[in-house]
């Protein structure tokens, strides 16, 4: 059994909403797991069941070899960082960090030692006497992290902790969280709807859709080998291009071109997926793109346009290429990097 074990966990809210469907998942000690998915897919619900803040309708949760189903959150030895931080407004930073230790009956000197260590690690030593209302967003974020770290819990739970920060701070804190987790080595689950955050933080990530884990794997596995249309569309930015097509006798007829010798015995209506970064320009290629808009990011150019059949399409090329608006590009798919999905079920078929 691994460190955290979820077995067929289901959550049905009293009003009948089925937020999590029979989910099973194992997380190893020290692992950084990310739950990613669109808003309302059940990420928070799953996380809150691990914390004990929501009852489990069906299934089992084991943490460190102990069944957690009926264990009160105060006894689980987990720490959580909330989206709005939930700092204690009437306590100064020191007491915010110390409160959980006090409840454990730890003696004063040890508490002081631990709080000071955590404060140093998070660079909040200068604010220990301040109330949360006198701190900036980034500082509050650190205090919330400190409150989790200081208790040295079995597991850290993060529920979209970065979404209240501005873009620059978000990237900075993302890095710091990753560094900190590697330093402290605590098992962590991080919930986010932002796929970039998910890709950069995760050791492994679980892509969740409608209360079901669609795919579980390392970020690269999921990027390189999406198992469903949903995962393919959700992971990667800009989004993967999708074209309708038909698969028959290992030949794919898409809109305006054909691909032969496809590694699949599937026959019928399919969706072809091509990532914008897996295309390159060459003479007389498969796809012809009429350029409408170019976004220059410096390192890259994002080229948006339409195919012959007026379908929107995106191509990503190095930033040193100049591409004229209104021109026609001829594009090939690099190294057969395309994905074919059954149109009716969304499952990968190649």
């Amino acid at each position: 059994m691994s460190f955290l074990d979820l077995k067929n966990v289901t959550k049905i809210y009293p009003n009948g909403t089925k937020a999590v469907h029979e989910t099973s998942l194992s997380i190893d000690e020290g692992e950084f797991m990310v739950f990613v998915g669109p808003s309302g897919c059940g990420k928070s619900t799953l996380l809150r069941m691990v914390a004990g803040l929501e009852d489990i309708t069906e299934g089992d949760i084991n943490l460190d070899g102990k069944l957690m189903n009926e264990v009160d959150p105060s006894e689980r030895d987990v720490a959580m960082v909330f989206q709005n931080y939930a700092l204690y407004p009437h306590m100064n930073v020191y007491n915010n960090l110390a409160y959980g230790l006090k409840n454990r009956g730890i003696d004063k000197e040890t508490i002081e030692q631990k709080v000071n260590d955590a404060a140093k690690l998070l660079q909040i030593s200068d604010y220990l006497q301040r109330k949360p209302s006198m701190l900036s967003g980034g500082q509050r974020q650190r205090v919330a992290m400190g409150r989790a770290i200081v208790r040295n819990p079995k597991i850290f739970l993060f529920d979209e902790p970065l979404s209240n920060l501005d873009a620059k701070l978000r990237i900075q804190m993302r890095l710091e969280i990753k560094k900190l987790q590697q330093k402290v080595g605590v098992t962590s689950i991080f919930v986010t709807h932002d796929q970039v955050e998910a890709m950069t933080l995760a050791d492994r990530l679980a892509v969740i859709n409608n209360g079901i884990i669609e795919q579980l794997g390392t970020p690269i596995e999921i990027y390189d080998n999406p198992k469903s249309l949903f995962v393919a569309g959700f992971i990667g930015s800009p989004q993967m291009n999708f074209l309708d097509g038909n698969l028959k006798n290992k030949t794919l007829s898409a809109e305006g071109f054909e691909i032969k010798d496809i590694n699949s015995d599937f026959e019928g209506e399919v969706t072809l997926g091509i990532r914008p970064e897996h295309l390159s320009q060459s003479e007389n290629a498969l796809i012809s793109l009429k350029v409408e808009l170019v976004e220059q990011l410096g390192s890259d150019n994002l080229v948006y346009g339409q195919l012959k059949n007026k379908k929107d399409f995106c191509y990503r090329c190095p930033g040193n290429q100049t591409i004229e608006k209104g021109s026609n590009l001829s594009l090939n798919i690099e190294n057969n990097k395309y994905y074919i999905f059954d149109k009716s079920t969304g499952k990968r078929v190649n």
Partner: protein
Amino acid sequence: MTRFITSSFSHLILLIGILIMVVPVWMIFASSTHTSSMINMNGLQMFLGDSFYENYLRVLLYQGGFFKEITALKMFFNSFIMATGVAILSVVTSLMAAYALVYYRIKHATLLFWIIFITILVPLELRIFPTYSVMAELNLVNSYFGLIVPISASAIATLFFRQFYKTVPDELLESAKLDGANTWRFFIDFLIPLSKTMIVAMLIFMFVFGYNQYLWPLLVTTSEQYWTVVMGLKMMSGSIVHRFAFVMMSMVPPILIIILLQKHFIKGVFQDK
């Protein structure tokens, strides 16, 4: 220029208002420092006389009542016990009632709350005889307990605390739970400090409410030993200057409480947290 005129105009209105409220009080105070014969001959006075100590000392220590058993000093003591008791008891019970209503999984908590709330529509006067007979059965007539307890359940204070608790974000409770706090610790370590200013405001309201009680103490006490100041206003006999002096003194305790706690009071009423 127009701003100056409008602002001085509104100041003028406020000043007139203050005068209307203060002048009668001042006249009673000024008159209470004269001798009775002076007042009887010349009417109410605007300026201070020289019988202040004489009048006030006599009122404080005079054995009054039908049986000559009670002094004004004792009445102040009784009123203080009663008002403080009502204030503390009603705030404590309301805090706990609101806590139970908001944080425990009680079936029909909202309905229960509204039932508590509509008791506001049932004034003490309406239930005064049943309440009295309960106190009589329990042998609590002529006791501080009997004076305090039956009027110490406050639906208004419960309403205030309930509404306040409802604005406290759920994450705070969840976060405290994960930090190892049980429900009792959350109450003591979070809700009480967070509602501190509101508690002070409610203490003042309920103190004044308890201090101003007339009908209930009148009914539940037969011994003069339990007379309160407000009862004394009606019962005390004596000359006109002594009554004035007593009236003046009766205003002191509520004013004192407000002055002492006003910093918290104003914060509590006009600004959350």
